[in-house]
């Protein structure tokens, strides 16, 4: 499985400068934030606690900090509920309803939201074309 590593820069507006990757969905993975470094399989298990894998409708994987993902009330419930959801155990959530560009924007929002709540006042720009799709996704995620 091929991995794509994206170094962490919080202020970046577009953490994924890798649009061509969308062309080959399935099994691709993008790390957003979280101070990404080359990870071996063994290391991955130890890091599972801090990162979450979000999978879009096209099978594109986003690996983000758990702290960021917790901005979404829905993901928080999935990851913390005691019932033993599959999501809780694997730290991995699939969203068959959310397309890749929208999930990307959602992930950006998670990080932006963390920064914003820590007092950094920047604007979160949303392109008018994606407002409706994003609104529905955000509504589903209770964000």
């Amino acid at each position, binding site marked *: 499985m091929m991995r794509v590593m994206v170094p962490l820069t919080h202020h970046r507006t577009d953490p994924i400068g890798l649009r061509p990757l969308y062309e080959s969905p399935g099994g691709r993975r993008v790390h957003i934030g979280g101070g990404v470094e080359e990870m071996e399989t063994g290391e991955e298990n130890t890091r599972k606690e801090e990162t979450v894998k979000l999978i879009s409708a096209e099978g594109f994987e986003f690996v983000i900090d758990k702290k960021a993902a917790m901005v979404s009330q829905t993901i928080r419930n999935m990851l913390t509920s005691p019932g033993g959801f599959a999501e809780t155990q694997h730290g991995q959530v699939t969203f068959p309803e959310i397309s890749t560009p929208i999930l990307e924007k*959602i992930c950006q*929002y998670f990080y932006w*939201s963390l920064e914003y709540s820590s007092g950094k006042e920047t604007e*979160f*720009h*949303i*392109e*008018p*074309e994606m*407002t*409706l799709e*994003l*609104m*529905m996704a*955000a*509504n589903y*995620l*209770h*964000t």
Partner: protein
Amino acid sequence: MDGDPELVGGLVGRCIDAATASVESVERWRRQRRTLDRLPSYLADALLRRIIQRRILLYPSWLEIFQNSAEEIDLKGESSVDVEWLAYLGAFRHLRCLNLANCRAVNNSAIWYLSGMNNLKELDLSRCSKITDAGIKHVLAIQNLEKLHVSETGLTSNGVALLSSLQNLNLLDLGGIPITDEALCSLQVLTNLEYLDLWGSKISNRGVAVLEMFPKLSFLNIAWTEVTKLPYLPSITCLNMSNCTICSIFYGKGSTSAPLLKLFGLGATFVDADEVFSIIDTSHVTYLDVSSSSICNLDFLVKMDMIKHLDVSFCGITDDSVEYIAKAGKGLKFLNASNSKLTSRGICVLAGNVINLETLYLSSTSVDDVAISYIALMPSLRIVDLSQTKIKGFTYESRDNLEKTFSLSLLQNLSHLESLNLEDTLVEDEALLPLVFLKQLRCLYLKSDLLSDVSLHILSPLSSLTNLGFRNAVLSNSGLLLFVPPKALHTLDLRGCWLLTENVFSSFCKLHPRIELRHELAGMVAIDENVSAGSTSLHRTYLTSEVRSEGSDGCFVDERIKYSMEELLGEDEQSYFSPMKESKYSSTEELLEVQPSPGTTLPLYDLSKLPKGAEEERHSRDLAQRHRVRPLSRLMNGVAHQVSDSICMDGADLAAGLPILLPRRPQAQ
């Protein structure tokens, strides 16, 4: 959005913000799809609500994309809503609730489109005055309708009688319609009615007997009617008989199904208050409003153990009645006793008893500083109004000892105090000092010519203060500029501070852009502030606003101002902009003060180069006005109009004052 706390702040709220930022943004997402089928209805509603609020719904056809998702639409007060809008709204299959209140353009033919809306449960047509008996027939087709507001429409008794076919109605608002006893009688088949509003109708004592036929009726409004005697209605919990002459309420007892909770008797004339209240079971009343009524003693309060909200303003009650209010004790949360004959002695009686009081209005009473010490014993107070009282802000220790004790310092005990009104009291600068300790104070209203710069500066440390009224004070320009506003302040009301001049407002606004200033002269500044820095555009805005305000005085309005600058410059190929040199005049005032030099006139433009149609009109006007109104006015959009009517300007000076606007004419002319 405002009513939806969930949607504010989060990503959903931001999406709605972004989607409705401008007409262009709506266009961009609207073009992608025909309908918003997948959008949950409450999001569709919120989106549509915001589009309407921001007035960016350019064409009613835009409504179409919402037709399968929207469930609630509020178009209250939108004067543009007309037949075309309703033609689209008629296709909204899931619409449950439609508010067209105050939509002046909605008429009988417009509501024809509503007739097929079978899911509609709530319809508000209040104040759509063009709707008459003929139009209401269309509404009758909506058999599921549960709530209908038709107050202040053009309906008559005949139209109202037709409503009896809407069997599912539980709310019917017929306010302001002159319906008769007979019409009310025909409505008695509506046995599901819970809410009936009949204010201002021609119902009489005979007609109200029908009300016994509504077994579920819990809310009844018969304000401004001839009714003097109301029979016993067992299910009523809220009764409004404001501005009626009340002989008796609920005569002839029967079995009770629900206790009376709220009673409104604003401006009512009680023939015999004691007798009226002796019949009603008032033991459960929580809300009583008898302001401006003929009641002057409050003996009846004895039985009202549950009362929470009491309004006895403008009733002329005296200190003797206060003991009855005090009996209400811990339950009382709201007391309005303004414009009464209360004095500090009365407040003393209240002090130990109404310990949970949150709101206290005592404006226009005779209370003085002594009362503050008693008010300070009501620890839950959030809102206190002491305007137009004899409060000075200090008391003397004793008759012999003339040392001042600042009475307002006692308010520190009120840890929940949010709003304090001290308008038109005798409080002076130094007496305000103790207010600094009211850290949780959010609104403070002061209005007195005893206050000066010092008072304003004292208030700087009030960190929670958002609204500050500082009216009629002797506030100087420098005093305002040196004022460091509290962090949270967003509204500063300086009306009546006559020492302030216009220029200070713009300086203040620049220093504190998030504060909204109110002042008689500040309106002008607000306009200027909206315009970007360019000096010429600033002048233009300033002056057009002047022109608008003077237009009504019947002075000459130059038709030619309708040509834009671009248009006119475009006509003249030979013209060119004068070099961008620094303006000789720094402000419009100076520009207008240019001394006339009667002999000189400005060079006129070549008339033949103006648009054809305009020429004739121009010509005739010019014959009369040529010597006074320069064609320059076309360029200045009204500036010259102002100028020409008052003074004659020196051409050279004007040219120098408006370097950008004024094209040079070739010497040939």
